[in-house]
């Protein structure tokens, strides 16, 4: 298990943090794109190790958080239908729709299942020919190849009882939207390592050029994140704006070509609404014409969806990096993981939930006090 411990070494992390403190002479705002990176930063306390001048802005890369409310409501309506087996990744189950969540649909008798791979849902369809099996295909480019493969297999096997409820979103248009938004403060990006493991990073040099920003492909372990931040700060300090790969053990420039070929066959680019942000043009994938028969939205004609977001929720501002979670008036009061008002409080990758769960509502002094007495533990 060397690959784990190697990238979680506290001493090396401290050394890298010191190096970042040495090279950072000015304040910089860097956005980590991916929700998995946000989770890791907060869980490990990476942000606490950085100089006060380096601010991490948490990006919109949590697939659970940006899936539009309307689609959640559609999912709930489909999952509640008799004869449907509704399959989803685990953390979609607690996302509040307008009136319920998938847990409640399950509790009321809906056949809702957590699967780890959409291919398991295809197997369920094969074994249950009398059921309509629907997979909730959300996520960025990372989860897309497996979702595409499930549609591909279903088509090859001629399955009539398998469909996908698709809400795929794409990273490059989101970066464009953030850079083009009024009042944008982001000066550099940590690109989502696992998105790039699929797509490579050939899409990004034009963005670096157009906006004059450094983009660093970054992983998820503490040392990966510190290395990504270090390289980004070095570029900013030197006035460079290049695409750099700090996740070489996983990511190549071209990415996974077999996956990209399959994605091009199964999906086509479409405009997509991002929860809390709005419609971003050409920012998502839907099933292509050849696979339209497997589109759950076509198979189940769900109408009459009327969505209503909480007026208190500022998840859009959080997702755009305009405010930190604790700056929302509802944070930790009306809105907690127990009673989420918006999706960013639901998923463990959501910035609000990460802040709440890891105690970022405590003051710095309280947290520092909490750790002060700890030095004796673990050395008996």
């Amino acid at each position, binding site marked *: *298990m060397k690959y*784990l411990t190697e990238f979680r*070494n*506290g001493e090396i*992390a*401290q050394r890298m943090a010191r190096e970042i403190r040495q090279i950072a002479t000015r304040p910089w705002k860097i956005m980590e794109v991916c929700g998995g990176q946000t*989770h890791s930063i907060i869980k*490990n*306390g990476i942000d*606490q*190790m950085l100089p006060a001048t380096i601010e991490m802005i948490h990006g919109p890369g949590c697939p659970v958080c940006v899936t539009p409310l309307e689609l959640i409501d559609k999912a709930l309506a489909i999952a509640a239908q008799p004869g449907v087996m509704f399959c989803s*990744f*685990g*953390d*979609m189950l*607690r996302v*509040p729709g*307008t*009136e319920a*969540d998938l*847990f*409640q649909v399950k*509790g*009321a008798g809906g056949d809702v299942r*957590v699967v*780890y791979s959409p291919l398991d849902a295809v197997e369920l369809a094969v074994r249950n020919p009398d059921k309509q099996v629907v997979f909730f295909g*959300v*996520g960025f480019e*990372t*989860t897309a190849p497996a979702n595409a493969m499930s549609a591909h297999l279903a088509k090859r096997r001629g399955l009539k009882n398998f469909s996908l409820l698709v809400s795929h979103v794409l990273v490059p248009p989101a970066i464009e939207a953030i850079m083009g938004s009024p009042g944008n403060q982001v000066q550099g990006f940590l690109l989502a390592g*696992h998105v790039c493991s699929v797509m490579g990073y050939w899409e990004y040099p034009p963005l670096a050029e157009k906006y004059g920003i450094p983009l660093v492909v970054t992983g998820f372990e*503490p040392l990966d994140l510190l290395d990504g931040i270090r390289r980004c700060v070095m570029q900013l300090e030197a006035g460079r704006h290049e695409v750099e790969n700090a996740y070489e053990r996983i990511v190549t420039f071209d990415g996974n070509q077999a996956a990209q070929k399959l994605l091009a066959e199964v999906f086509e680019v479409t405009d997509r609404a991002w929860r809390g942000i709005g419609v971003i043009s050409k920012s998502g994938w839907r099933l292509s014409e050849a696979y339209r028969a497997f589109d759950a939205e076509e198979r189940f004609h769900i109408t009459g969806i009327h969505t209503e977001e*909480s*007026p*208190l929720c500022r998840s859009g501002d959080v997702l755009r990096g305009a405010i930190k979670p604790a700056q929302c008036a509802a944070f930790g*009061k009306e*809105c*907690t*993981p*127990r*009673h*989420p008002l918006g999706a960013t409080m639901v*998923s*463990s*990758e959501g910035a609000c939930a990460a802040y709440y769960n*890891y*105690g970022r*509502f*405590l003051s710095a002094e*309280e*947290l*520092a006090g*909490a*750790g002060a*007495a*700890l030095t*004796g*533990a*673990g050395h*008996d």
Partner: protein
Amino acid sequence: MTENDGTPDFSNWSCPLPLADYPTIVMGHGGGGKLGNELVEHLFLPAFRNPALENLGDAAVLDLGSGRLAMSTDSFVVQPLFFPGGSIGELAVNGTVNDLAVSGAEPKYLSASFILEEGFPLSRLAAIVEAMAEAAATAGVRIVTGDTKVVEHGHGDGCYINTAGIGVLRQGIVVGPHRAQPGDAVLVSGTIGDHGMAIMSVREGLEFESPIRSDCAALNGLIAEVLEAAGDAVHAMRDPTRGGLASTLNEIAQASGVGIEIDEPSLPVRAEVQSACDLLGLDPVYVANEGKAVFFVAPEAVPAVLRILRAHPLGRDAARIGQVTAQHKGMLVARTGMGANRVIPTQIGEQLPRIC
């Protein structure tokens, strides 16, 4: 403290979408997290309130005049019924034995009730019963009463088991979740997360070079040795089952009105368990154990208790993982491997695997 002392107050809740107040039972009510705690505190406790129940310990302590008894009960609904390292049979015996043992009692007698589904193979039931008999013999307890019910096909999941147990409390030993004190050291008897990940790997078809085995074991022997040596220096004990180490430590922090600090790198976690957790996006501190105990011990007794634990086959990987503080009352705070701090809260319901 800012707005919040770690036990969020929902009394002034004014959400336009009152969603999470589930009007029906959801799986999370059985997940060892907040939803389950609320069921106990808002429904069961008010309905049944009495001094023996109020402590909400793993077992109730009953004073019968001639001596003190401990009583506990637990139901077992695990799937799959057989898994690497054990079966529902061992779990049903060891679970109740451990609940008695961590209450400071010597477990003596168990009951066993079976709810069986029509069509369940008798050979499987026989294997389960054999496992129970063996576990009872190992733990030194007797199964003295029982019951069997059969439900129609489709109304059960093969085999559910309930066990209840009675134990005799040792003279002069008073342990309980409300007795942890600032300065106490927190010790754990071995690696965490083994049972939950053993079950999860079977369910999800994860394969490792050596399969993850459940740690299912009776802890009464180990605990007896600790109590004999350290006596009243042991303030609280708990077996961190559902909801894992994090839920157990949060419960004790809240019951005792103290803060608990743990040093994350000192947590004993098997590499394959950590790996499986990383793969599924889970945190081992929330994963169930079935053969581990957490001890809150006065600092001067720590070396002796660790020595005893490590000399016992079930305590070889015992470690000191943290301590009790008078600060941040009711909360569990971890020092991360990076030297930063984070709060580890009680989960709301089940821990959900992350999307990617």
